[in-house]
């Protein structure tokens, strides 16, 4: 498989997974507004954390900085998170990037995947959509979620479970582990309270919902929602597909499958990625929630996210940039020249 293609497949799948995470976060926060009958101050407190920058994010545009300060205008935040093209993590931006990556590799993925992703992209490019989504948020977010999950399901059902599929899985699960860790980190401060009042409980349920894990939790524990158990479930559960541990295991499996192929050239460094991921995965496998909370949940989650970023770096270096050449993130000038040459070719194609 071409390195360039593998890289695009990986990122296509990461962006699809990311759009799911972002969508759930928005939806759940919106729900909380209704559940808690927010006054303006708490309302802003609810939305502000969602604006917390992630690594590599640029600074917030001024209208949002104001929002965070003025503690108002939840709608502006929602629109930023869901639709704004300047926000690299907005749903629209994620699907746009996923589609751009898919377009580069559409001969490699299945037509079903490409067509689903393309129709989701077409659906999201309707300029009237932000208003529609405000009027009927549930229908909107449900549709986006269903279609994104359809793409993931199609990857399992229509691709041969070979190299390309493993890159899809790797992308999905690395992204998921990262997102769940991030969502938990956003709520880690709640653990400082006694966690027994009604408002906190609603919040912890909402954390589960943001990770699509409320039903799974209920079935697994069949017990009232308790902060430590929520952390345990989302971080350490070995069977639930949204947990960090489960995601890491799946990612590790795919990575091992990728490196176990007969390679004509032995690449000792291949093990660096597998080793880093295996180590992280094993760590979660043998951790207990009490120890984690005792040692500091926030710090622990930060470490997990840092290690995940390292794994991504290893994968990129070892599998996707086989030989030193200019990366896929080309400079603006180079991109413009490439475009012009490709179009010039169009004039020559008869």
């Amino acid at each position, binding site marked *: *498989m*071409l*390195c*360039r*293609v*593998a890289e695009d497949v990986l990122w296509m799948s990461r962006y699809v997974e990311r759009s799911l995470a972002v969508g759930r976060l928005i939806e759940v926060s919106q729900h909380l507004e209704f559940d808690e009958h927010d006054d303006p101050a708490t309302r802003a407190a609810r939305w502000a954390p969602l604006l917390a920058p992630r690594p590599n994010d640029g600074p917030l545009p001024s209208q949002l900085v104001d929002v965070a300060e003025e503690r108002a205008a939840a709608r502006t935040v929602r629109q930023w998170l869901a639709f704004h093209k300047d926000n690299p993590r907005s749903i629209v931006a994620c699907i746009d990037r996923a589609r*751009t990556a898919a*377009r*580069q590799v*559409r*001969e*490699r993925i299945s*037509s079903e995947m*490409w*067509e689903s992703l*393309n*129709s989701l992209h*077409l659906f999201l490019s309707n300029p009237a959509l932000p208003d529609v989504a405000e009027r009927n948020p549930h229908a909107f977010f449900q549709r986006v979620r269903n279609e994104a999950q359809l793409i993931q399901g199609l990857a399992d059902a229509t691709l041969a479970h070979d*190299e390309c599929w493993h890159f899809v899985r790797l992308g999905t699960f690395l992204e998921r582990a990262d997102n769940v860790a991030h969502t938990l980190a956003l709520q880690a401060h709640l653990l400082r309270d006694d966690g027994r009042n009604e408002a906190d409980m609603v919040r912890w349920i909402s954390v589960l919902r943001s990770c699509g894990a409320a039903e799974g939790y209920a079935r697994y524990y069949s017990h009232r929602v308790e902060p430590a158990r929520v952390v345990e479930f989302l971080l350490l559960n070995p069977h639930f597909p949204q947990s960090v541990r489960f995601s890491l295991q799946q990612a590790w499996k795919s990575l091992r499958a*990728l490196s176990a*192929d*007969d*390679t*004509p*050239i032995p*690449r000792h460094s291949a093990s660096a990625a597998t080793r880093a991921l295996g180590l992280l995965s094993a760590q979660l496998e043998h951790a207990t929630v009490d120890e984690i909370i005792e040692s500091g949940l926030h710090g622990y989650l930060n470490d997990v996210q840092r290690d995940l970023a390292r794994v991504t770096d290893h994968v990129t270096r070892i*599998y*996707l940039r*086989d*030989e030193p*050449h*200019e990366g896929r993130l080309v400079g603006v000038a*180079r991109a*413009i*020249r*490439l*475009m*012009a*040459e*490709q*179009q010039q*070719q*169009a*004039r*020559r*194609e*008869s």
Partner: protein
Amino acid sequence: MSAQPAIEPMPLVPSVPRSALESYDLGGFWDEVFEHPGVPRPHYVALSRRLATLSPEEVEARRRAADVSFRVGGITFAVNQGAEGVEKIMPFDLVPRVIVPEEWDRVSRGLEQRIRALNLFLDDVYHGQRILRAGVLPPELVLGARGYRRELRGVDVPLGVYTHVMGSDLVRDASGELCVLEDNLRTPSGVSYVLENRRVLERVWPQIFHDYDVRPVEGYPQDLLEVLQAIAPPTVEEPVVVVLTPGVYNSAYFEHCALAKAMGVELVQGSDLFVDDGAVFMRTTQGRRRVDVIYRRIDDDFLDPLAFRSDSMLGVPGLLACYRLGRVSLANSIGTGVADDKAVYALVPEIIRYYLSEEPILGNVPTYLPVRRDDLRYVLAHLDELVVKSVNESGGYGMMIGPHASRAEIAEFRARIVADPRNYVAQPTLALSRHPCWVDDHLEGRHVDLRPFVLFGREVRITPGGLTRVALRSGSLVVNSSQGGGGKDTWVLARPEA
């Protein structure tokens, strides 16, 4: 949804439903469907009966379904608009074009003859140059062609075949005979629309296939793959084939993907390939992998920055050297542009006679070469009647249609022809045949051409039909998709009559 067919001002809306064909006007042109007003040709009887009974709502619904199908499939081409890569769908007309077996037989024999003669010509001009020494063709015309690559002199190509894929444009002359308007021997595009137009029409309007026995087109990618495997360097047992694309901003990118996918081969860009020790490799997740055959959709000029344009970022440095050594095969070969040069085109009948000792089965459009003094005088005196084309451009660029041109344009082309007569050819303005197309709620005649696709490896294989391109603007003669043209499904019938 953009890219709706151009819409004419609507006539008075009749209060009673009427047949979409009721006021169909032949306009004095050779019509593909009607022999005389109201009298369809025998092979169009069943189709026109169906067309007459359709309600406008039904047509609209099917047309919309077709648009959605193209849109969702991402079957789009990028339009040249600076750095903004706008994706458009090619307008698709629902009414298929029908070709009877006898006519197709003549066309395919004519195309086979043509591709064989042109390959012998290419082999000759890059080897002994007998045709030049025999004085059949003027050497300066051939060796001075922009597409002639002296780097290829003396290079033997696999099977002696240079043009593995040919897309020739056919039009009807005034008598209704199909003849060749131009040959495309470099990187002809459009075959994916042959496949997609059929797939979409079957999807949105399956009923019309009931009346006819239509020959399938979907074998094309397999045929192409066979050709590509056949031309691999002879020492290779299981050749690795790739499709080389300029990238997503190229207007034919969809086609490159579709072909790579249907053949099950990698779609690569120049940066995915590199040359080492006289061989071509691609960068894969499992290390380097040898590449044996490249179906390249990049022009010669951009193919190898070490040999041709040094500023090309699309090509592969060192590729030409590997090719000359026979370590990698290219389809089409380098240097085929000399055989579809528009001035050389005028001499193809001579080329056929010289190499095959046969009369051309398919005629040429009369062509004036201003490089000849008599022709120049005639061309300059009749610019307002002629179509003038630059010999090196395609896709409807660099041309002037005399009867539709302004005084200023004519003056400009006059100056350009005088300055560089070798660079231009002129042809009489053709009355291209017309075919009914949906315009609002009724059918109107629009000019069409036909681009069949011819494959040549161990043998010649021609996909039945080809791409029928339609000039959707009323009265327009330009069918190129970059100039607002659309497409139709094209049926070659398996049996003489429907």
